């Protein structure tokens, strides 16, 4: 089948982003046609972003992990959540969030080390996080039984809408919450995120 000449780079990029349910990287997008190079893709993305803003479309170009994806505006969430055919993402438990925070910054890390930091057993939560592909086994440690080591998994950045781990504050850089009282606790994840 001949590739019709009429398709502009914007249309190709837009079509690809629409057909994909996962973020696509610029180098991936540029493989769709020889007319596309990295620069063309970048300007097509920029043009689409402006178009969607100007026309007040229901969706935007989002940047996730190291790729781009079309996502609905957050203001539409209340309408969309009513529909069973719109897949909603479930929120993680605090146990899962805490474990992920530790794994993200201490990877590769074994279960025992994770449990030392959190002070509780983490076997179940690890299994859940693996199922959700938020973490993965990245190797084996030394020592008795050569324990499994875990690191962040393929869906980690996407789940949190992050471009990279650098978007998160490093625990070392956080202030010691000296004498902070109750607000610090609330900030630190005790309060529901909305």
């Amino acid at each position, binding site marked *: 089948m001949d590739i019709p000449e009429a398709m502009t780079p914007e249309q190709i990029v837009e079509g690809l982003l629409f057909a994909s349910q996962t973020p696509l990287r610029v180098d991936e997008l540029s493989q769709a046609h020889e007319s596309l190079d990295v620069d063309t893709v970048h300007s097509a993305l920029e043009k689409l972003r402006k178009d969607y803003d100007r026309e007040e479309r229901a969706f935007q170009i989002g940047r996730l992990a190291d790729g781009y994806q079309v996502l609905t505006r957050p203001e539409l969430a209340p309408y969309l959540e009513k529909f069973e055919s719109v897949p909603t993402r479930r929120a993680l*438990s605090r146990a899962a969030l805490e474990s992920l925070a530790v794994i993200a910054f201490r990877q590769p890390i074994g279960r025992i080390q994770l449990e030392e930091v959190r002070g509780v057993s983490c076997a179940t939560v690890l299994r859940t996080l693996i199922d959700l592909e938020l973490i993965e086994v990245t190797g084996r440690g030394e020592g008795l039984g050569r324990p499994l080591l875990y690191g962040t998994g393929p869906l980690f950045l996407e789940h949190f809408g992050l471009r990279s781990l650098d978007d998160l504050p490093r625990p070392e850089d956080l202030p010691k919450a000296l004498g902070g009282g109750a607000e610090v606790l609330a900030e630190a994840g005790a309060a529901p995120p909305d």
Partner: protein
Amino acid sequence: MQGRDERGISPPIPDQSTLREGSEPFVVELDKFEGPLSLLLHLIRVQDIDIFDIPLARVTRQFREAVEGNLDQAPLDAAGEFLEMAATLMKLKARMLLPRGEPEAPDEDPRAELVRRLLEYERFRQVAGVLASQEADRRLRFGRGWTPPRPPVRRERPTPGATLGDLLAAALGIRDPDPPLAHHLPRLRVTVEQKIDLVKDLLGRSKRFSFNQLVPRARKREHVAASLLACLELARRRLLRLEQTAPFGSLWIFRRP
């Protein structure tokens, strides 16, 4: 403990203000805490205690009261974690009473290791808080829910790299949900028998008809279920044939010769 949900799916995020200050002993609901470090940190923060100079006697007593008041509700392994921390606190308290310089009490403050752990844990909890708000924002943005039908492409499919053995192992490894799911089966006000009669009647009058004719849209799901079961039963008896010409298309019922 609900705070440590088995599946990592969000339980309602606990409100930690359940610890009522002012009157002693504190009333603490243990299951609002992720674990002993979380409880300890809470006791320290809510009373504005200097974390580098923890009054061990007071905090230990409050911690034990909180734990002992809740032991019957906590699952065994979680209770163990809290009890272990209580023991650690009591040991530290004992060591604080020893004069410094004794062999059992090195020069370092016996509380130093505990403080280091608490501070480390608190920082990770702050990161978890950032993750929670990132997640909340991301959950408001929905991706494309549908991949359009495209011309079928015969392409090299990526191999999933799994054997039948893997599949069966996965099947056998599935844990039954607990607690057992309460299935609210609709009490059928219509019976499959009635629907079989209806289908037979329609079949007598026309050679084919669509399932929609059988179940007007407004009908409740028990009608749909009963009708479907009736059709399946009649298909099994080889009185009719079911056909769907396109994905999502109508289901057609054909009389068998």
